[in-house]
């Protein structure tokens, strides 16, 4: 096994192209587990930890460009105002030690349906920026990025450069189920974002389908109901029945399995409860802000 350590983004892309057998490693919180448990023996590790560009974030035209290598701790500390959903999710990732190393880029690279960053990215309408030495950069909406269980839309010669996430125009929430009160991989997870600027609702579901996914029907339903009842304008109380119907539609968008962490039925049930509660909290925040 070789250890490849580019010091610039261009060098990283060149190596990526030359070594299709290399596995990119950033915080190591997924890759090293596979190596320690003898599940994976790649030809090389491609360490992205020295690529300074990846560890930067900035804002342009209301969109946060989050370098793929920004660790969760920094998202919690620096971006809770602009990206509240992602910050809430980041706070639930593993342990403090994991949050210091783990990155959103890593979450996207692993593309586990249980990755904590995915639901808020979906809810916020994030776009993944990937690049290759041969073809340069391209942008993939998060919802199209996840292609299967632990599979993503990256080509063999591509690396994840950044995630482009619109700054929150309204309240966001994230909830996650685990069977203990810290350090859990999600049994199920849900994120929602209210976009009062465009009178839209965003959602993201984790650990309840082969890939992270949106609950598009639930989004359209709620946005439509809010529109129809004039609630976007009045900022009146969110009817409990509406929140409940939203929750049911969120659950309907999932297709979970039974596994050692939880039953499919529980995943569906918990999603509907989390979605109902989360959207109510978000709506109440919106009302308070008004």
């Amino acid at each position: 096994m070789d250890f490849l350590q580019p010091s610039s983004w261009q060098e990283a892309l060149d190596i990526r192209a030359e070594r299709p057998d290399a596995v990119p490693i950033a915080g190591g919180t997924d890759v090293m587990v596979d190596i320690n448990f003898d599940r994976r023996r790649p030809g090389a590790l491609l360490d992205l930890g020295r690529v300074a560009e990846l560890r930067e974030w900035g804002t342009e035209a209301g969109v946060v460009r989050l370098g793929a290598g920004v660790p969760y701790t920094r998202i919690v500390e620096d971006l809770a105002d602009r990206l509240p959903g992602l910050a809430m999710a980041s706070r639930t990732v593993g342990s403090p030690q994991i949050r210091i190393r783990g990155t959103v880029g890593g979450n996207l690279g692993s593309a586990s349906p249980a990755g904590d960053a995915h639901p808020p990215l979906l809810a916020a309408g994030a776009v993944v920026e990937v690049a290759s030495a041969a073809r340069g950069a391209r942008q993939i909406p998060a919802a199209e990025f996840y292609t299967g269980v632990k599979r993503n839309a990256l080509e063999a010669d591509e690396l994840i450069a950044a995630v482009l996430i619109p700054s929150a125009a309204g309240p966001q929430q994230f909830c996650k189920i685990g069977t203990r009160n810290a350090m859990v991989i999600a049994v199920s997870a849900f994120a929602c974002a209210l976009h009062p600027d465009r009178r839209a609702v965003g959602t993201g579901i984790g650990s309840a389908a082969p890939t992270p996914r949106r609950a598009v029907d639930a989004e359209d339903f709620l946005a439509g109901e809010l529109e129809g009842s004039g609630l976007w304008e009045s900022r009146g109380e969110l009817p409990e029945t509406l929140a409940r119907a939203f929750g049911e539609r969120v659950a309907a968008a999932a297709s979970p399995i039974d596994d050692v962490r939880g039953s499919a039925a529980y995943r569906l049930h918990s999603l509907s409860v989390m979605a109902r509660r989360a959207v109510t909290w978000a709506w109440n925040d919106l009302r308070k802000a008004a």
Partner: protein
Amino acid sequence: MRITTRVNGTEQEVDDVWAGESLLYVLRERMGLPGSKNACEQGECGSCTVYLDGEPVCSCLVAAGQAIGREVTTVEGLADGERLHPVQEAFVECGAVQCGFCTPGLVVAAHDLLARVPSPSDPEIREALAGNLCRCTGYEKILDAVRLAAERQAQA
């Protein structure tokens, strides 16, 4: 592969490191620093916690090569010569140590917490130490130790 890194203030250089080795393995088996413990190999227990460039990380999840040229501080580097760090002292005095296998990681994590938050509340202590599993103590005396260390640091 050659690994050169600064550990506990001393330049260390080791050769013939396999690329799949973790920083934990290199510290323990190649640098003669077995204080950091290997208990889960997947970042779920915190027993291998060390400082990497001043931040507490699970050394089992740091590829050895990622530590090249970095600054590492392990539990062996916290005491001032023979004098224990107040966090270490408090762990001993409060009975926060039983089998002690989790202790090195907890000491580093608590050391980091108190460096950032001098007088943490109980929920803050719990959240900060939630990545460090202990199977012997039920954590009560660990909380006692962190509170005592905070108190002493405030007085000092």
